[in-house]
């Protein structure tokens, strides 16, 4: 069975370490915040200028001056800091963020990522994504393994305009967790009940399958 969005978020959350400063993109990455293990603490960075993003506000707390990069109303946790966009991207570009989680349309075996436009179809803009992938050394890309039509999104070479070149080394899809090494996807874990064959079928890029590929385990 392919992972649900929640399971994907839970799997990503296992990569968090105590004391990490983390930037979570829109969509599935945002959900990761709900699954931070109890025994660790992470600090969320929102690129519009907030370090230490807290939960959503109550009705009474809603404040138009307090939003996150997804434009959602949020709160700040005690010990938060607020700053300008220049300072925010100084942090990001300067490599001070420990982990970035973001979605993508395509990733390829050389660590290229495409996530910001589909020519002639969709132009939303890159927002902060190009800075994030250029600045972080530690990026997890979350995406479905293939399109609805079964076309692989893990490619030999991205077909869409790139967001960043050679910057991705970890991918979590609804089918598998993979690492990118030396021009290939290395299959590290399978979603529960998903066969290596299915992953092979849906991976267009070069795939290395180790002898043993463990299945992910979700406690409940």
């Amino acid at each position, binding site marked *: 069975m392919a992972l649900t969005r929640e399971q994907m978020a839970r799997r990503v959350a296992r990569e968090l370490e105590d004391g990490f400063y983390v930037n979570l993109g829109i969509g599935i990455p945002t959900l990761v915040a709900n699954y931070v293990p109890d025994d660790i603490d992470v600090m969320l960075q929102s690129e519009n200028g907030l370090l230490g993003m807290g939960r959503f506000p109550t009705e009474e707390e809603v404040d138009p*001056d307090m*939003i996150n990069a997804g434009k959602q109303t949020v709160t700040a946790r005690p010990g938060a800091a*607020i700053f300008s966009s220049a300072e925010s991207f100084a942090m990001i570009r300067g490599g001070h963020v420990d982990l970035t989680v973001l979605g993508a349309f395509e990733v390829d075996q050389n660590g290229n990522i495409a996530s910001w436009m589909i020519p002639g179809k969709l132009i939303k*803009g890159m927002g902060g994504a190009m800075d994030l992938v250029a600045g972080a050394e530690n990026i997890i890309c979350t995406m479905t393994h293939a399109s609805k039509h079964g076309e692989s999104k893990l490619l030999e070479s991205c077909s869409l305009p790139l967001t960043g070149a050679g910057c991705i080394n970890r991918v979590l899809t609804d089918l598998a967790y993979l690492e990118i090494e030396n021009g290939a996807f290395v299959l590290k874990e399978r979603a529960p009940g998903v066969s290596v064959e299915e992953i092979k079928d849906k991976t267009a890029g070069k795939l290395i399958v180790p002898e043993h590929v463990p299945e992910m385990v979700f406690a409940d």
Partner: protein
Amino acid sequence: MAGFDKRVSSLEEAMAGIESGMTVIAGGFGLCGIPENLIGEIQRRGVKDLSVYSNNCGVDGFGLGLLLEDRQISTIYASYVGENALFEQQMLEGDIEVVLTPQGTLAEKMRAGGAGIPAFYTATGYGTPIGEGKEVREFNGRHYILEESVVGDFAIVKGWKADRYGNVVYRDTARNFNPLAATAGKITVVEVEEIVEPGELTPDQVHTPGIYVDRIIQGSFEKRIEKRTVHQG
């Protein structure tokens, strides 16, 4: 002390001198911390052919979206054009030139422009369409592209409090691009919620020192919320 009293009493005075064809740098992120009334005044004046630097372009009917309606913007430098149907349409139809610019590069272009740095290198966008046609250079084994900074004819800024000298503080995440925009205007106009007496802002806590600011106006703000998300329970 007239020389340092930067208060103006009307929006007309606040935007005096803006003309068609000028470059305008705007603070704000989404609809948060945007200079609502200064945008309204630009709309009222009907100046055309503006080049605008702003992270977003508002939404249909609010924020910079107002200037799209009247086709006052010919070129916009922005990182994100989602959530604005009219913008997307004008872009796809070629009515407006959109120079998509990574958010951090956009911020740094403004900061550098204000700081007398004409250009800087960044890894952001290297190997992507953003890097095409730009100089690439290697430093310590990594590739970077050269980006030029920007100075606008006008910068329009939304602050929280200011004194008459033009010292400004911003509130929470309504800060965003505003302090950068404030440094990068030949004429910088700041609208705030409250004008306070000199000395009320602690010198240590001033976000934008008055030297960058030419005009200050007090206004009232709708502060529309783009995505109202609340905590359940």
